[in-house]
């Protein structure tokens, strides 16, 4: 296949950035989208240009490192798929494809397609955990967890922290990410003691980081590669209200 790529190039945080056009001709339908960039980068290097910087690691759809807004959609056109798992057979010969970084106030661009997502880590620091000191845990079977709860907690826990939800949201909100963690921990008996403080602290940290508020537009779940549902956000809202009331 032959493709035309328009890629966002930005030398650093202070550079204005621009779209640059490249042609790639020997594209195999079996390539992943990142392998397409690898091939292009090899060419750029040999041609004396700097390769395009992008984040990636596992290339198995699980580490959450890869990003890329492809033709306007975070992680591209295929539903429930990360960019590294998106294969070129989804595209057709002669297509023109736009590639841009995640754009959100809380995710400043570092270079080209690489953005800074450490704000997510700071939301977790604010309370996205269960305080369980090492070495003194109770026997695992001493607290049964009903299977439906465990399954639902697992579903929420599959969030890979990629940030596509933020990139898709018109408000740049990180609510789906935050809600996924709140839902995961809130569904387990182990997560109950810190449930109220967790939601208050995490939502506070979320806002402090410059993520926008959630107005239920639903763009986030549409692009989420792990299918985290909007119901997670309702759960967060419920927990939040409960915690505020309990406090006052």
């Amino acid at each position, binding site marked *: 296949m032959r493709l035309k790529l328009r890629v966002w190039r930005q030398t650093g945080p202070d550079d204005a950035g621009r779209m640059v056009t490249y042609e790639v001709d020997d594209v*195999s339908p079996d390539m992943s989208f990142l392998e397409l960039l690898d091939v292009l980068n090899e060419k750029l290097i040999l041609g004396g240009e700097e390769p395009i910087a992008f984040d990636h690691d596992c*290339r198995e759809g699980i*580490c*959450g490192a890869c990003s890329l807004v492809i033709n306007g959609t975070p992680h591209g056109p295929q539903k429930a798929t990360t960019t590294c798992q998106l294969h070129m057979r989804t595209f057709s010969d002669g297509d023109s494809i736009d590639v841009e970084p995640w754009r959100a106030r809380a995710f400043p661009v570092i270079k080209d397609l690489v953005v800074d997502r450490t704000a997510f880590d700071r939301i977790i620091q604010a309370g996205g955990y*269960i305080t369980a000191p090492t070495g003194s845990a109770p026997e695992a079977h001493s*607290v049964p967890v009903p299977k439906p709860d465990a399954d639902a907690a697992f579903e929420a826990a599959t969030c890979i*922290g990629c940030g596509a939800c933020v990139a898709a949201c018109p408000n740049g909100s990180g609510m789906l990410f935050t809600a996924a963690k709140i839902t995961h921990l809130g569904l387990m008996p182990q997560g109950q003691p810190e449930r109220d403080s967790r939601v208050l602290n995490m939502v506070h940290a979320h806002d402090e980081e410059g993520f926008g508020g959630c107005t239920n537009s639903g763009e986030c779940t549409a692009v989420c590669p792990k299918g985290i549902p909007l119901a997670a956000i309702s759960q967060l809202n419920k927990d939040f209200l409960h915690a505020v009331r309990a406090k006052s």
Partner: protein
Amino acid sequence: MTEFYEDGDNIADTKAPDGPIETRWERRRFGAKLVNPANKRKLTVIVVGTGLAGGSAAATLAELGYHVKSYCYQDSPRRAHSIAAQGGINAAKNYRGDGDSIHRLFYDTVKGGDFRSRESNVRRLAEISVEIIDQCVAQGVPFAREYGGLLDTRSFGGAQVSRTFYARGQTGQQLLLGAYQALERQIGAGNVEMNARHEMLELIIVDGRARGIVVRDLVSGEITTEFADAVVLASGGYGNVFYLSTNAKGCNVTASWRAHRKGALFANPCYTQIHPTCIPVSGDHQSKLTLMSESLRNDGRVWVPKAKGDQRAPGAIPEDERDYYLERIYPAFGNLVPRDIASRAAKNVCDEGRGVGPGGLGVYLDFADAIQRLGRAAVEAKYGNLFEMYQRITGEDPYEVPMRIYPAVHYTMGGLWVDYDLQSTIPGLFVIGEANFSDHGANRLGASALMQGLADGYFVLPNTIGDYLAAGPFDKLTADHDQVAAARQQVEDRITRLLAINGDRTVDSFHRELGRIMWEYCGMERTDEGLRKAISLIRDLKAEFWQRVRVPGDGEGLNQSLEKAGRVADFFELAELMCIDALHRTESCGGHFRAESQDADGEAKRDDEHFSYVAAWEWGGEDAQPVLHKEDLDFEYVHPSTRSYK
């Protein structure tokens, strides 16, 4: 065979306690010096790596009261390679009452490792496995559960009991998130200083002790020297030396290799685990191989056509023209034989010309029977996400046609040599997780790496490091100290040298070529002739690399080509040592299959009389030969026997 290495002294002391094996760990713990809480605050520990090993260690050390500095090359500790582990984690809980016990897990692991691991370590691992599950459950890890609310388990390659705990096909992710959340909590509390997007490029040794590291901030390009009272490497495995592997793209050997060059012994580098169930290679563009969890072998049946070159679609091949070769050769274990056995069997049938798919490098993993027996819904509930992943990558629907799989490089059992306390041969340098060599012998059983990473990080290291740190805090260091400045200079010189070559080949092209040499000659099957050839090819390619590689850009700022170049440079040196190690070990064991050493049935033939030892290599110098030190292995509790799964 001294044309490639020199012989050194045997390793005298592994610090393993003697006496009854059941109480060795308890006695060691009791014997270790304690550090009082007020002093812990004054002690700093550097932890390189935030995977299951490093993440759990950093969180636990911080919780104990030490000041911790943590490093990883990804943008967030949550993305460490451990996140990709699919199948599960073993623990001798015996929740199923199917005859499991600490002793059986110990026994299976020593046997599975082909009698090339240490009894004391493995026994400790089996003991701690039980506590790991408790710890992770307390953290909220959403393991799979039964309807009654209790934890579910499954069986995994090489085990006849159901001792593997799992969270669908994403066990590594869930366990890592547990450790990451514990780590973030300590970061939030100010006890851990987290440095993401930072790469360790050198070890700092002062007065014979590991006292710090030289790191490059991958965003600003700034190089700094960081000090501590002890350094812990949890930097993962080196399977990416093969270029194509199931490892994350960034996995590398640099942290370990830099320590090796400064005096840490590197043990058993040739032991590579090849995983039998990966998606076959589809073309030259391929950048990595994807694993299909081994748990699939619980229900999937492996087969190839009986006839050579049978090109018919799988559905058109009648039952009696199929060879379910694992069930045929290994009736007791069938499709569940350990990885080394399953991988070699797949290679053999493909070598016979009975492989399927492009190039004949594949075998079928068929779910038709399981779908018929259990129903599609049940199969979907168990393996749905793996099936989806397969379909996305290959464009084929595994509910309709059997999956095609082929072995791929997956895990490295070798690593830096450590004693029972997980301390390397450099005082103050500890090594945990896949980066050390200690617990898996020549072959790792499924679901054991996660167990080892967490055992090391949550339970072993936090106990043993105190014994060392009790002598600290050590003298304060500054950046202008001779040995510190020299380490920093080494890093700067290397970067300058790489950037100055400005040749006409990319880093990736060298890496791919190195990978092909390694797969061909130091992969699933090794021969004397092939290994000698590989050593010479590697030396030539390495020389070419230093003349022709092109690393664009500069050192100031994010430069992913520069990062790769440094890692590939270290892979060249490691690759040579792997081949030398493989060449000297003229026996077959676990992941090391020497074609010259097999029995009449083509099964691996161990040579306990001559090779029942750990090969620990000392860096000889830039143009000198490595030096071989042996650690003899004793088996008091599990007597070496021919490993048969028939």
